[in-house]
């Protein structure tokens, strides 16, 4: 059956399975990805079916995982690396930033680095410290990396395979609080390009731009705003590097207002980049300054406070009201 209703986690699992089947050079690597199937079970059953040589339980060493993935890629493999949680990517940050991102350019384009680094990210699951971070801006800032994040099961299925097929390193952020949300996946569809944004809901008065975990919140906010007679468009950016500014510009030229929503701290965050670019592109169309809703300049708080820290429906609606008040 081509169309199935799957939770995002299962869609990612199916996507990896498909990638392993299609290309013998694809490898899965990471801590606990084998028998356990990863702490979120995204690789569940893959080692059983593809063997320990292709689904590789690595030592507990993130720098080692990414560093050896680089070597395997240089040798013609396509490693898909799992970092167990967002907060644990930093031991590997050195390899990602100083090596993975730059090698293609340094070799004058003669070598390819088809490495995918999968990172479950973001909050909302009541976890302990270092398990709820949103470090996407730190990666998007680095030239040479591509950074994407699916918001639903269908994108999870397709974007992951596209990331694996890409000859560039892709940092693949998985919104962990959406792992259990079900969505329709058409495994025979022809997917859109990896880096295009998608208008997730049409509207006329204001555009909400989001990606990953916040798309659902924005869709809920748009539905709530509708009840108050406000027509809100939602753009799912899908990719944070590059960003599909054309789709966003088209939307903003129509609605004349933009609010950018993400979980990561607002300060120096991806919202700042989007606000600046859209202001440059749409200055004469804008009826209000581009507003941003996101995390505070504070360490991600203990679980019992995360609902206050994370942008929820109310904070998004509050920004919608502020924008419309201009």
């Amino acid at each position, binding site marked *: 059956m081509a169309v199935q209703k799957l939770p995002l986690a299962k869609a990612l699992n199916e996507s990896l399975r498909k990638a392993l089947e299609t290309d013998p050079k694809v490898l899965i690597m990471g801590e606990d990805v084998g028998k*356990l199937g990863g702490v979120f079970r995204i690789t569940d059953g893959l080692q059983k079916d593809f063997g320990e040589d292709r689904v590789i339980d690595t030592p*507990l*060493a993130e720098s080692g995982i990414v560093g050896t993935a680089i070597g395997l890629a240089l040798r013609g493999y396509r490693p898909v690396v799992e970092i167990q949680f967002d907060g644990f990517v930093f*031991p590997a940050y050195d390899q990602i930033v100083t090596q993975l991102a730059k090698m293609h350019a340094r070799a004058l384009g003669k070598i390819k680095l088809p490495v995918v680094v999968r990172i479950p990210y973001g909050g909302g699951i009541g976890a*302990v410290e270092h398990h709820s971070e949103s470090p996407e801006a730190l990666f998007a800032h680095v030239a040479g990396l591509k950074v994407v994040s699916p918001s639903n099961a269908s994108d999870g299925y397709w974007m992951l395979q596209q990331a694996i097929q890409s000859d560039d390193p892709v940092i693949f952020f998985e919104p962990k609080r959406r792992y259990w949300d079900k969505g329709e996946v058409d495994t025979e569809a022809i997917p859109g390009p990896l880096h295009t944004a998608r208008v997730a809901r049409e509207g006329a008065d204001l555009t909400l731009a989001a990606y990953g975990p916040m798309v659902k919140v924005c869709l809920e906010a748009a539905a709530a705003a509708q009840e108050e007679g406000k027509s809100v468009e939602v753009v799912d950016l899908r990719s944070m590097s590059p960003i599909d500014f054309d789709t966003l510009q088209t939307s903003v030229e129509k609605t004349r207002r933009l609010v950018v929503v993400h979980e990561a701290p607002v300060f120096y965050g991806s919202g700042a980049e989007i606000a600046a670019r859209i202001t440059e592109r749409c200055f004469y169309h804008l009826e209000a300054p581009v507003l941003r809703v996101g995390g*505070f300049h504070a*360490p991600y708080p203990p679980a*019992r*406070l995360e609902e206050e820290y994370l942008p929820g429906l*109310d904070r998004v609606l509050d920004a919608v009201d502020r924008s419309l008040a201009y």
Partner: protein
Amino acid sequence: MTVESTAARKPRRSSKRASAAGKPQSSEPQLVQLLTPEGVRVEHPEYDIDLSADEMRGLYRDMVLTRRFDGEATALQRQGELGLWASLLGQEAAQIGSGRALRDDDYVFPTYREHGVAWCRGVDPTNLLGMFRGVNHGGWDPNTNNFHLYTIVIGSQTLHATGYAMGVAKDGADSAVIAYFGDGASSQGDVAESFTFSAVYNAPVVFFCQNNQWAISEPTEKQTRVPLYQRAQGFGFPGVRVDGNDVLACLAVTRSALERARRGEGPTLVEAFTYRMGAHTTSDDPTKYRHDDERQAWEAKDPIQRLRTYLETEGHADAAFFAALEEESDTLAKRVREAVRAMPDPQDMAMFDHIYADGHALVDEERAEFAAYQASFAEEGK
């Protein structure tokens, strides 16, 4: 130990090379032991210990209370009072033995599982639960008991311990530092770098690795091809493997390593060979990767039971002692349960506290904005 299935693997050059480089871990390691699993006292030529009956009862009490505290925390997690718990079940001897070897002025750098060491340092056990309940990220002042905050990022604290020990040496103090970590952590670059720094600077630090055989689902063989204690040699300091379920041996070996550090002779790696009897944490499912017979084999080496047998056969403890301890355990469990249930959620504004020592304009601004935003709901509610 569970042996990974190798049936699917073709012999390849790379795998042959790997086995030539070092034998896989032997399952019957040479280890320092002073008390057998049957509770029989044995001698060791290098390490010995002379404890009074009172001191041994003390060690027993520490282990029993720690286990009871740990069990209560697991239960509290099951009842929804804690978001997560990392149990130390089976590792009591490694923690109490090493913890009781410490002097007050020594400094401890733990992982997230050192509840028994915290107990030895006098940290109120209820303080340990805040971060697992989700109300804080620490919950105690590290300098009150020279017990640093729990560290979740694997391996990081070994470098902090080394740096602290370098400071101790610079100050000309004669205290020592101990860093705890797991067998999985031994794969991290930070741990290798801490070995390098401590050796080069002759830092007074003891690396105490609790090899509990597993790093979540990965057995020690997925981290190393040589017994972990042998790593130290390549860095230029001694390594010793101790029976991690033998509290007397853990005490003796750690004490000796600490004394060596105090004498200015530099670091030691202690590998406490032990076993994680429960799940990695309460969100783990060991049935996916581990056989139960392995656990049963280790249950026969239980650290608490073996000391109890010894105390009983030597006549060091009577029924009244055990009964009183049982009662004390119940009291502790009750106190912990009540304290957790009474633990208040933090105030909203707490997330803006203590971010900078000297303050920060942006934080002040966001705090004020957030306060106004929260207040707007109160007004609406009127």
